[in-house]
């Protein structure tokens, strides 16, 4: 097995946190957590101003994060990894684990993304949830989510990461099922939770193997020594971590929950199921880079999972008529890109995280746009009932359009730099069949992405109007449009900003190590050209079919592949057939064994004892002569017993 990434990388050593600013980094988590606690415990009294408190907590965390970022930036690159020990968490004999935070370029990149996008979505939600009776509870959950997510990315050990990991899972569950009076939504929340449990199981197994192998679960204890552990152990850790990442990031084969998760309010979809939580798996893989570098098999598995998911999501996205589900499929596909890049290692880490950031902006922007459309269309999500909304909601149309251009990878928008980087890296990494297979997957994925995103955009905003007479599409209030505009700015410029001059590459270097670029199997510029041609073809196809041609208001039957894609490529059916039904059979047979076997044995034993009792009872005849005789017999037996011992 040849490693995908042969050369060793040097990563910066960890230093202790210095200065009041770094020492106070726990405030990042504490601020939104306090917000959540206040809102949940304060009850109805906080209804009037609670949402503004949540918004303030989130912005406060962003300001603190930005200050920390500037602080770290003022240091030399090799000093930018800082460890902050908070308190002794698990002092168990020989096992000492402190709760602590790790401040480094990677975690701070996430902190800025989470707090900035998160705060914008907080603001947006103030207007979006205005008419909901439980707005306060919604903001409490949002704050809880932000706190958990920050803990997840700031933790300095896998154990503390796990706490955040579970925290975001909980917040996700609560928010998907926020309108749980609708049984379908409640089921969706449960589905997300259960599928995440499968992934969490993988993460916990990985932590256990880590502890067995290294005797510690801190990054500082595990990652620098990953090369010294046996390849076998590293492979198992890597695969178990991948299982965890698949659950949280909706990657194949644990992707089925994401589409249903769109049951939550749209800001939730934007924040949790597009920009932040679902990218936690990518964070986990990048953070555990040294482990994967020591386990080529696991690394290959990551790439395969990414490639399968990116195509899977893209195909599903082509057939969805529900605007949020189409976006969810697209999210799945884009995270597939990130996962693939993270599995490639080296420069792949940089592009994975860069795409994660740009995607966080443009996808969140598009989700907010979708929310704005729904807001104006009486909460309808049916794209076949949209059409020609560009006139009615100009801001939404413009911001959504910029996001669309970004995800397509049209230069010079954000997505171009990050996605093109991934395609290039895929064509450049590994040897033999790998660059071709993985490269072609990303290339084809880009073409399909162009098709389905254009389809979505055209069906919604262009073509002929198909909405019913009672709909009165209108632009949303500025509390909603301003965040969308800000995110659109990111969609336009963030990619270029990060890419030009290797800015982001240099920033991440203390974490990923110095990386050199490889030469792709197809030359750089022809490859770029090829990508753009495919994108153009995708857009043209969508234009012909969904702008020029009449879009039927009820979906035509479609080819078998369309039908399969509408049903999410039968992922639920597969799950039901492979896991649910055998599981039910197993449960039923266990119940059967329990009632017939265990209960039968117990019942039989009880009956036997009862029968014995009934028989012995006859001894008690009530006749005193029988009693005396039985006593005498007892005396004889006792005498014989005593004598027999001596004899």
């Amino acid at each position: 097995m040849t490693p995908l990434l042969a050369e060793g990388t040097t990563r910066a050593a960890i230093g202790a946190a210095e200065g009041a600013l770094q020492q106070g980094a726990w405030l990042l988590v504490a601020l939104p957590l306090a917000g959540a606690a206040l809102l949940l415990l304060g009850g109805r009294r906080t209804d009037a101003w609670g949402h503004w408190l949540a918004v303030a907590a989130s912005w406060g965390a962003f300001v603190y994060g930005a200050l920390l970022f500037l602080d770290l930036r003022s240091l030399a690159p090799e000093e930018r990894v800082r460890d902050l020990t908070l308190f002794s968490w698990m002092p168990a004999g020989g096992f000492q684990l402190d709760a602590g935070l790790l401040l480094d370029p990677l975690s701070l990149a996430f902190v800025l993304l989470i707090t900035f996008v998160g705060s914008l979505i907080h603001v947006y939600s103030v207007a979006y949830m205005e008419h909901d009776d439980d707005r306060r509870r919604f903001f409490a959950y949002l704050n809880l989510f932000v706190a958990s997510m920050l803990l997840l990315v700031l933790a300095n050990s896998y154990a503390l990461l796990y706490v955040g990991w579970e925290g975001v899972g909980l917040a996700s569950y609560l928010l998907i099922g926020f309108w749980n009076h609708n049984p379908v939504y409640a089921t969706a929340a449960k589905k997300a939770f259960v599928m995440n449990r499968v992934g969490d199981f993988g993460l916990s197994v990985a932590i256990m193997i880590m502890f067995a192998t290294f005797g510690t679960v801190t990054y500082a204890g595990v990652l620098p020594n990953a090369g010294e552990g046996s390849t076998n152990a590293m492979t198992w850790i890597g695969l178990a971590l991948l299982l965890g990442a698949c659950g949280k990031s909706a990657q194949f084969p644990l992707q089925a929950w994401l589409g249903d998760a769109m049951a939550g309010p749209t800001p939730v979809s934007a924040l949790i199921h597009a920009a932040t939580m679902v990218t936690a798996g990518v964070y986990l893989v990048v953070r555990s880079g040294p482990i994967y570098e020591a386990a080529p098999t696991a690394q290959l598995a990551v790439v395969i999972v990414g490639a399968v998911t990116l195509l899977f999501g893209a195909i599903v996205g082509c057939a969805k008529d529900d605007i949020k589900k189409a976006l969810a499929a697209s999210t799945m596909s884009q995270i597939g890109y990130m996962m693939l890049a993270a599995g490639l290692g080296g420069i792949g880490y940089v592009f994975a995280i860069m795409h994660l950031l740009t995607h966080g902006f443009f996808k969140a922007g598009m989700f907010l746009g979708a929310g704005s459309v729904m807001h104006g269309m009486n909460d309808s999500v049916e794209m076949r009932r949209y059409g020609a909304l560009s006139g009615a909601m100009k801001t939404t149309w413009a911001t959504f359009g910029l996001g669309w251009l970004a995800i397509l990878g049209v230069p010079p928008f954000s997505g171009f730099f990050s996605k093109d980087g991934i395609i290039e890296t895929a064509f450049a990494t590994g040897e033999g069949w790998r660059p071709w297979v993985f490269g072609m997957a990303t290339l084809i994925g880009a073409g399909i992405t162009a098709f389905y995103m254009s389809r979505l955009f055209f069906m919604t905003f262009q073509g002929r109007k198909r909405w019913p007479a009672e709909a009165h599409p209108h632009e949303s209030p500025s509390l909603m449009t301003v965040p969308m505009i800000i995110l659109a700015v990111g969609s336009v410029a963030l990619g270029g900003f990060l890419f030009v001059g290797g800015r982001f590459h240099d920033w991440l270097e203390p974490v990923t190590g110095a990386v050199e670029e490889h030469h792709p199997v197809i030359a750089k510029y022809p490859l770029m050209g090829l990508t753009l041609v495919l994108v153009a073809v995708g857009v043209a196809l969508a234009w012909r079919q969904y702008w020029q041609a009449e879009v039927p208001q009820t979906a035509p039957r479609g080819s078998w592949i369309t039908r399969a894609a509408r049903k999410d490529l039968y992922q639920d059916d597969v799950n039901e057939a492979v896991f649910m039904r055998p599981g039910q059979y197993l449960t039923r047979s266990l119940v059967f064994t329990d009632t017939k076997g265990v209960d039968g044995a117990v019942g039989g034993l009880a009956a036997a004892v009862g029968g014995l009792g009934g028989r012995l009872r006859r001894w008690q005849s009530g006749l005193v002569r029988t009693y005396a005789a039985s006593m005498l017999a007892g005396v004889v037996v006792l005498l014989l017993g005593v004598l027999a011992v001596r004899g």
Partner: protein
Amino acid sequence: MTPLLSVPVAADFVAPTVDYVAVLPMLIVFGAAIVAVLVEAFAPRASRFSIQVGVALVGLIAALGAVGKLIVDGTRVETAGIPAADGTLAASIVIDGPAIFLQGTILALSILAVLTMTERSTDGGAFTPQASAVPGSPGEGAARRVGLVQSEVFPLMLFSVGGMLMFPASNDLLTMFVALEVFSLPLYLLCGLARRRRLLSQEASLKYFLLGAFSSAFFLYGAALLYGFAESVRLADIAAAITGTGRPAVVGQDGLLLLGIALLAVGLLFKVGAAPFHIWTPDVYQGAPTPVTGFMAACTKVAAFGAMLRVVYVALPGARWDFMPALWGVAILTMVVGSVIAIVQTDVKRMLAYSSIAHAGFLMTGVLAIDKIGISGVLFYLFVYGFTTIGAFALVSLVRDAGEDGVGGEATHLSQWAGLGKRHPMAAGAFTLFLLAMAGIPLTSGFMGKYAVFSAAVSNGAWVLALIGVLASAVAAFFYVRVIVLMYFSEPSGSASVVATPGVGTLFAILLSVVVTIVLGIAPTVLFGPAEAASLFLP
């Protein structure tokens, strides 16, 4: 013609010095018993009952106070009567740690028992107005109408308590036999005094007397054989003879020793209700007036196990390898028989009788540990079991048939207990607590008791006994919990039953039992400390 009485008074007779303080508890109780007899003879009928209750309570409480003084003083007296040089008046009573602990336990329990015997608030009490009347005869009816009261129960009971105090403090086999008879004979009478179901009660009394006499004979014969072996009835002398350090035993007389041990054991095993000598227990427990059953179940067990501990630990340690296997068999049989037969009982008093047999088996595992922690475990177990039992029987005496004219006789059939939890939550709750304690559920005193004796058995290699004990406990838990289920989750099916409003005495007895059961379940060290400190026998 030889003079009928030619033996001259020995010139060198030395009167035994008696440590009166040490034997004060027994003296007080016997004294109170004699006063009670006089009261019965001379006090006017109208005030007799209340005077008797007063005498009994004052006597028992004073005796308990005397025991308290012994505890406070830390008195340990080897012999109450210091023997003369030749030992003709052998040290017959020993007041040591176990004796003091057991006497205190017996006195505390008998005070509660007296309180339950005073219960007359509903239908004139548990005792027949005239014991000699033929059941159901016009004479009996007449006696009831004129309001005759059977107040002899109190002197009888005081004599019995006195014998019980003496039994575990006896330092030789003859004193022990006397004590045995002193506490047994009044009990035989008490059993026949039930107010209702007179025939059953009299039958129980007669059975108990016949079988008790039978077993006493074995005990006495065993004592005689041991005297033949050791030429002494003193426990310490027997122990010395067995080890060969005392008076040299005749070679080849081991048969005397072995048969003597076995026959002596029969007498003790009969009193504790161990299988196969348990067979009187259910009939007698069922037939006796319920307050007497409670008294008998609690106090007899304490006294008899105290005596068994003393015999095994003081007289026979040298011969333990001879009798242990047989007693192991008895213990196992007792646990199994008690637990298994209890399952099929339909009468709550009979069920509790079999439960007491099972408990005798559990207690024997502690005795057979042959270790200091075995002694303290048994002492603890006896204390907590005694309180649980008195409380349980006091409650049984309150659950009555719902007759046309208010409350009727005791509703002892289990089907009459169905649904009691809804109608009388307090009574059902207290009974549930006692049942859980008997089942040995944690946070009740019964759990700590079982834990104490089983752990003593395990740490001394008797893990087989402990294992069977645990299994038997599991079986026993079934029938205890079945009653709880019946009380709370079943609809009443049998004839209706009501819970009579208890008088002050019964109420106090039940409440104190509840408190002891809970407190010793949560803070067992309160009693474990004293039990451990008391667990040293003086020879």
